[in-house]
């Protein structure tokens, strides 16, 4: 058979055989799955927060309190109702003529009911009907660029001392704190996942060195350098890593699709539609894959070189 071409070898050490040959793929697959999930949640949350912040910045809401019914359960007097309507008219007129305001619009009653519905439930028309609740007047104000809100607030207080202005600063601060906390938590979670993966891959590589000790020693004795032997483990780990990472990424994409489909069916005025930018998609697809591969690669290299240094 001298003319036959011997089959090209893959590794000098039989790394594809023995217990735990596919463990690296599983570990990397899980690592990539969870890191991608964390990253996707982070991107989603940032995107959501951005939508909220954009919606809330440059606007404010003026609230004029409604007249309250008498304590004996009687009806609101026509005079009180007239005073309430006059206040609304006066405030709107002032706002429309103020240089700090680019647009001012009173919200309709259905719009106000829509806003409070998530807290009070749907209007069923029964005894708990929203009609029974005195609703304030809400005026949605879009501010002009570089508007002086303090001056506007003073002008408003002169006309209607009981009116309140909500420029959403508390809400914006809360959203920012929430996003920052979530980002920190996700970074920590990613760190824990990566740390666990490093420890596990290092353990798997050490076990493999033990399983294939005789082959490693033979290579060592015939003059293979540590780097030559480490390369075999590195390449094998990298191959397993890529296989696992692609599988993890695939599972993650399916999960994201399912989450996306599920959130579309949720009727909620809290959650605007989540949409990732192309750069975020690229990062989501490539970052865990590339970083997972690099981490596994370097872990295998460092572990093998450390263990080999014990040989003479």
């Amino acid at each position, binding site marked *: 058979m001298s003319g036959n071409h011997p089959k090209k070898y893959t590794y000098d050490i039989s790394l594809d055989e023995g217990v735990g040959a596919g463990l690296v793929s599983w570990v990397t697959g899980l690592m990539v799955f969870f890191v991608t999930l964390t990253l996707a949640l982070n991107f989603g949350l940032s995107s959501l927060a951005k939508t909220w912040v954009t919606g809330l910045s440059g606007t404010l809401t003026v609230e004029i309190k409604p007249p309250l019914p008498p304590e004996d359960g009687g009806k609101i007097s026509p005079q009180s109702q007239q005073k309430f309507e006059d206040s609304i008219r006066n405030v709107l007129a002032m706002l429309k003529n103020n240089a700090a305001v680019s647009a001012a619009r009173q919200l309709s009653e259905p719009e106000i009911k829509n806003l409070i519905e998530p807290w009070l439930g749907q209007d069923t028309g029964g005894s708990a009907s929203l009609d029974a609740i005195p609703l304030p007047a809400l005026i949605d104000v879009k501010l002009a660029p570089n508007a002086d809100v303090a001056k506007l607030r003073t002008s408003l207080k002169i006309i209607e001392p009981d009116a309140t202005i909500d420029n959403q600063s508390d809400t914006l601060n809360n959203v920012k704190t929430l996003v920052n906390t979530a980002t920190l938590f996700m970074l920590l979670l990613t760190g824990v996942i990566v740390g666990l993966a490093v420890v596990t891959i290092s353990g798997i590589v050490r076990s493999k060195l033990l399983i294939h000790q005789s082959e490693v020693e033979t290579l060592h*004795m015939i*003059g293979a350098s540590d780097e030559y032997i480490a390369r075999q483990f590195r390449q094998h780990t990298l191959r397993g890593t890529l296989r696992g990472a692609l599988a993890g990424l695939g599972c993650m994409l399916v999960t994201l699709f399912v989450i996306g489909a599920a959130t579309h069916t949720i009727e909620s005025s809290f959650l605007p539609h989540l949409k990732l930018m192309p750069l975020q998609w690229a990062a989501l697809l490539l970052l865990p894959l590339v970083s997972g591969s690099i981490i596994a690669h370097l872990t295998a290299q460092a572990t093998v070189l450390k263990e080999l240094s014990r040989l003479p």
Partner: protein
Amino acid sequence: MALVRFSNIGLRYSTGAEVLHDINFELEPGSFHFLTGPSGAGKTSLMKLLYVGQKPTRGVISIFGRELASVSRKSLPEIRRQIGVVFQDFRLLNHLSAFDNVALPLRVSGLSEKDVKKNVTELLEWVGLGEKMSSRPPTLSGGEQQRIAIARAIINRPKLLLADEPTGNIDETIGLKLLTLFEELNKHGTTVVIATHNEAIVKSFPHPAMHLESGMLDIRHKKQIKAA
């Protein structure tokens, strides 16, 4: 200059007793020595020291003119590549073909695949295994496995060839043929050391023997061997 020099070498494993005591010898380039002694005398330990598979507990080993204690770890593979070893249990890699087993020393030396193919094919044909290049060791007979082990040991044209009990698993006729092959290699300049407990084989060849007994080494020349 001696190819190998051992000066006051002692070896102990872990905290156990010393298995080799005050070993002193020199191997000249192109020499042929047997290493004899009863089982447990320390032959394998001495062979390990010779193929740089073990560090001595004390003493100085110099191989190819370099004191091993002062050689960096990175440079040791370069020294090992000039030493061919036929292990007693062959130590073939069972998942690789005969071709890939013999090719290993060339590949670790970084030779091109073209040269690897040429050299390995030639050598396997020379040892009579040209037809079994793609076979894996478990499918070959003991004699065939031994020839692969020998081919792997000599493919790099080593300066020093070590064989640990190479005739242990084969009959006497094949054993003598094998030793004749080692003599041929020796005639081409390779220094040879063969560890064996077979005194009959030692007496059949005109080469000196390094005799190990209870960890002590005694070099016997032909006349002494015959007298013994």
